[in-house]
């Protein structure tokens, strides 16, 4: 019988959203295969989180709870996951969300088992004797179908923003078992030093209208026009990572791969070029308007409307007219 194991990623003391998206894909697959979902969780002081995770329909959680796992160390994680996976004989499916962590750990683990992976697929389904997944190519201009024998060892990362997050069901429960960490001397070639993570207090994902500013806004003070426009139009402020990195606006407002995924009625992107890491977070907005001085900006590939002009001229004028 197939073992179906989801690597449950934790950030800021919570199970990440992308892991919950992965669990949605795993759930359908588990029904089609007629097997349970199992999970593995690595960290320190994570017992409550592990118990909580079973309420997503995970029947058994292997919990690696150890002070050495307080900070993420890819070599420690790979070794311990390797030991866990070695206990099972194929067919086995090991899945994780294609977060930055998932995209590091899963290919590395797969290579240790001399296996390729379903890399950043939007879906993974059973078709006859094969597992089939879709991997976007050329920044989503083409779709590649990936296929592999379901009876082998399969490693998978599920791309964010393509599946709903699994919901908690209080009536569900499962078993939590401790799994001892395995770390070899060679794994100590990596040392965790520190992590800087922004606190989040504003949720922009529910807003119907987003005015987002990027590097093209040109400065912290100049970012005021984005706030003012959002306020006047009754929307929320969004931002590219470049604007967040420059400290013009807090991380809460970041849209994209490492920020929020939004689907408002209106998204107005001002001075944002449209790097793929940004586009994945907003391309499903209902109406996309770009304000950019550059007609060649990739943002125009996904935008419905574009004004080619200086945003500092456009936004004050827009406020006047509405």
């Amino acid at each position, binding site marked *: 019988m197939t073992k179906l194991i989801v690597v449950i990623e934790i950030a*800021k003391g919570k199970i*990440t959203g992308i892991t919950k998206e992965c669990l949605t894909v795993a759930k359908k697959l588990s029904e089609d295969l007629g097997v349970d979902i199992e999970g593995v969780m690595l960290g320190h002081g994570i017992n409550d989180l592990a118990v909580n995770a079973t309420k997503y329909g995970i029947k058994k959680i292997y919990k690696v709870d150890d002070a050495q796992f307080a*900070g*993420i160390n*890819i070599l420690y994680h790979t070794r311990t996951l390797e030991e866990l996976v070695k206990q099972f004989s194929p067919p086995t499916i090991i899945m994780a969300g294609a977060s*930055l962590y998932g*995209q*590091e750990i899963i*290919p*590395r683990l*797969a*290579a*240790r088992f001399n*296996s*390729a*992976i379903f*890399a*950043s697929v939007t879906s993974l389904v059973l078709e006859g004797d094969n597992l089939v997944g879709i991997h976007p190519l*050329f920044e*989503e*201009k*083409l*779709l*590649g*179908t*990936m*296929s592999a024998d379901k009876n082998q060892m399969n490693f998978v990362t599920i791309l964010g923003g393509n599946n709903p997050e699994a919901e908690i069901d209080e009536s569900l429960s499962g078993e939590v078992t401790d799994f001892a960490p395995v770390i070899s001397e060679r794994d100590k*070639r990596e040392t965790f*030093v*520190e*992590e*800087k*993570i*922004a606190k989040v207090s504003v949720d922009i994902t529910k807003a*119907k*209208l987003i005015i987002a500013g990027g590097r093209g806004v040109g400065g912290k003070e100049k970012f005021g026009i984005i706030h003012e426009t959002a306020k006047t*139009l009754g929307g929320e402020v969004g931002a590219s*990572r470049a604007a967040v990195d420059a400290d013009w606006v807090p*991380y809460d407002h970041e849209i994209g791969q*490492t*920020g929020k995924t939004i689907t408002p009625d*209106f998204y107005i992107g001002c001075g944002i070029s449209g*790097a*793929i890491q940004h586009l994945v977070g907003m391309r499903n907005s209902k*109406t996309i308007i770009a304000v950019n001085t550059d007609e060649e900006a*990739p943002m*125009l*590939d996904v*935008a*419905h*409307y*574009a*004004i*080619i*002009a*200086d945003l500092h001229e*456009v936004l004050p004028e*827009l406020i006047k*007219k*509405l």
Partner: protein
Amino acid sequence: MNIIVFIKATIDRNAPLGPDETFPGDRDDKADVMTNNYDKHAIEAALQIVEKKGDGKVTAVCLGSDMADKVVKEAIAMGCHEAFRIENSEARVINFFSVAKILAAAIKKIGTYDLILFGMQSYDYGTATMAPMVSEFLDLPTASWVERISLNGDKINVEKVIEGGTRTIELQLPAVLSIASSGDFEEPRYTSVRRIMKASRTKVPVWEIDKLEAGALDTNVEFTKIEQPPARMEECVVFKDDDVPVLIDNLLSALKDKGLNLGAYK
């Protein structure tokens, strides 16, 4: 300090894409072939490290067909000390698992290295699997999405992107890194016309896959089909070359025609 940088030939994002596009190395129009943009950040990182250290060598390596020679030459023009291509005509090997094996075998053949750098992903396949897979095949520590680097004897301190912030880790050299498009290496250097002219005259050494002892090159996960997603209904409507108030009026009336009202959320 010996640094190996992997560079990939991909196609211009404005070039037309066939639905059966499998490998960018064999295009009819050579003008469409270009260096994967993300790899330029890796070249920039390599050059900065060597410059700062005051000694060392940067070797650029590209797996591709002869169309990729211009990519190799661009790496030389940017300042890489050496560069070569691994012959992959007619897209003989395209699956990323085998590519990772070939690249790992090439590194073994080069023999001496302290750092191996990749761009953070490719524009075409975009699997971001090279750094983690190659590092595993070579049994080396690795970090992806690296924004900042500081060397510390036989160790390297790297600051990498994570969701909502950064993580700093220390790795024992040699190590494999993928370099972020943001951070200290965000702006790859431009090359002068003189350097490009000079580089264009260099002969690109070519290595053969078969001489690399890369092992079996079959993959257990295959691309079976590549197709275009359902076309988006509308093209982007562009308002330009007019006074800003006129541009906005035009936008607002276009929205109105579609029954959309930007003023509905106040």
